[in-house]
């Protein structure tokens, strides 16, 4: 019985580490910046798709190169999602700081766009996007060098938007007619795609009796630890980390101290998005990847940040582990043998002993917990709260 409990505990830690890795980016974006980013799950999904693309690029190289693709995928997933996060911050979030409801709606819209994007993206669509961005932003950059740009800005946007869209449409439809299916076929489509773990991540390590901890789970656990340590060192020891901590606590005063707050905001959001990409890369090793992959994680990740205490990294760690372990202990029915002497409780636990019902009970426990500790497990303390 003790062995089974111990095994469940290990499985819980493993689930907790996945939760934590997914929540880490949100702990930066929501916890530090206060931005409710509903597209966080879709950034994870894009990280997972980036892994799929890198895996396919490495396949023809064969072994031993294929075994190393995951490391390239981790870097690529971070860079792709960080870049997208940067664009998202500059294009959407920057204009909505201090307006949480609008931010929530706008990022939810972005999440739907990204889901549809991976379903529909093809060479033709990509070419259209590139041509549109090249013409529109190129022309805007050229015009912005003129001294009276502010006066003609509205006029320029009104003229350039339909013009760039028209050129992009003409270019992509010409290409589509010439090469047809080769360029109009979606890259990924609506179907889920599979990421194959490298050979050295298959199998597992025997811990207790028949219990085997898969290498993939150990890899994700190690990745989570590396990301947390990296984040801690970056935030606590680097110049940009200090700037981020200052701006997230007092934006206007930080600006008055000479800190370029807009650059700090952009970097923070890009960092949080990049971490979502790494999480996406990790979860792609656990199951198939689809346009809805991010939706499976978004609620859990928000729960981790809120239960831990907004703005507290250590809180997110504790909350992810607690939620992960509670989920597994309840879902795997590991607790009912312990309370077998009290049949009504044992029966109740048995009733919740599957993954969806376990989630219901865990959420109920979280709601109850937040009634008593609304600021989470690690709330701000002392004069710091009012300062």
């Amino acid at each position, binding site marked *: 019985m003790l062995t089974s409990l111990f095994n469940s505990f290990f499985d819980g830690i493993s689930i907790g580490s996945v939760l934590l890795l997914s929540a880490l980016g949100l702990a930066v974006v929501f916890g530090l910046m206060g931005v409710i980013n509903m597209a966080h799950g879709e950034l994870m999904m894009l990280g997972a798709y980036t892994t799929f693309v890198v895996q396919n690029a490495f396949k023809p190289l064969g072994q031993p190169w294929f075994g190393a693709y995951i490391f390239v995928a981790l870097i690529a997933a971070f860079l792709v999602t960080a870049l997208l996060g940067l664009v998202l911050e500059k294009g959407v979030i920057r204009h909505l700081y201090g307006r949480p409801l609008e931010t929530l709606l706008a990022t939810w819209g972005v999440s739907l766009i990204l889901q549809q994007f991976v379903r529909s993206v093809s060479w033709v669509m990509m070419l259209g996007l590139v041509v549109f961005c090249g013409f529109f932003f190129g022309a805007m950059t050229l015009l912005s060098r003129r001294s009276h740009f502010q006066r003609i800005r509205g006029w320029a946007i009104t003229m350039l938007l339909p013009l760039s869209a028209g050129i992009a449409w003409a270019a992509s439809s010409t290409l589509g007619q010439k090469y047809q299916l080769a360029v109009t076929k979606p890259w990924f489509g609506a179907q889920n795609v599979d990421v194959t773990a490298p050979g050295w991540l298959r199998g597992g390590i025997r811990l207790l009796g028949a219990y085997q901890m898969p290498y993939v789970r150990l890899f994700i656990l190690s990745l989570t630890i590396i990301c947390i340590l990296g984040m801690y060192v970056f935030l606590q020891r680097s110049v940009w980390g200090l700037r981020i*901590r*200052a701006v997230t*606590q007092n934006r206007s*005063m930080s600006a008055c101290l000479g800190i*370029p*707050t807009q650059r700090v905001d952009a970097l923070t959001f890009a960092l949080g998005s990049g971490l979502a990409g790494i999480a996406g890369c990790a979860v792609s090793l656990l199951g198939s990847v689809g346009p809805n992959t991010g939706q499976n994680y978004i609620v859990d990740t928000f729960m981790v940040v809120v239960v831990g205490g907004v703005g507290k990294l250590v809180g997110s760690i504790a909350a992810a582990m607690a939620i992960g372990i509670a989920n597994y202990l309840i879902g795997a029915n590991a607790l009912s043998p312990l309370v077998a002497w009290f049949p009504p409780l044992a029966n109740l636990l048995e009733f919740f002993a599957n993954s969806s019902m376990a989630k219901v009970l865990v959420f109920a426990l979280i709601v109850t917990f937040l009634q008593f500790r609304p600021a989470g497990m690690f709330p701000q303390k002392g004069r710091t*709260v009012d300062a």
Partner: protein
Amino acid sequence: MVDSTSISPATPQPLLDIANLNVYYGESHILRSVDLSVGPGKMVCLIGRNGVGKTTLLKTILGLLTPRTGMITLEGTPLRRKTPDQRARMGIGYVPQGREIIPGLTVQENLILGLEARPQGRGKSQTIPEQVFQLFPVLQSMLGRMGGDLSGGQQQQLAIARALMGSPRLLVLDEPTEGIQPSIILEIEAAVRRIIETTGVSVLLVEQHLHFVRQADWYYAMQKGGIVASGPTSELSNQVIQEFLAV
């Protein structure tokens, strides 16, 4: 009372010059045709009852509020299109009302943040000049403590020290003695006086504490968003004090 157009401390080339400044909150006209100047190495005090627009004026100088009309220049350079961080790097140091110490950073980190305002950038410098500890010895023993855990007086000293770290040319102080115990007020007064003497920095001070006001070279009195009186503080009459200071 004087006409605002005649107001000017006797300095040929002011460090800070404000001309015909008008600021609105929505449609509410807050600052009305404000003219003000601060000479190099001078201490200028802005007095007036609560709600007359003193803090609004300071926030406009710092770039936190945008004026509808008017001109602000620092050594002849217009500040209109400059963001607050650019203005800080141009040499405007700010000690806000309520101190606004970054609570979750240590005293040392708060001080190091002050280096960001240096015109040449902070580079890799993390050194706190000895002069800061000479002015505020209490900070030396508290470097590892969280800024938010300090008392009001200690936070005020930290806020001034933090502003000094950027080697400002103009130090803007917004009610630095508000809510501070009398013995600390005297320490802060002495420190500000010493800062001007040793660094030659100009100071624009908003203050209600009469003793501190008298330390300044020049005063401007505000009422209903406009400057209504000014002159050397040595000529501050009892009538002006009673009318514009909450004493």
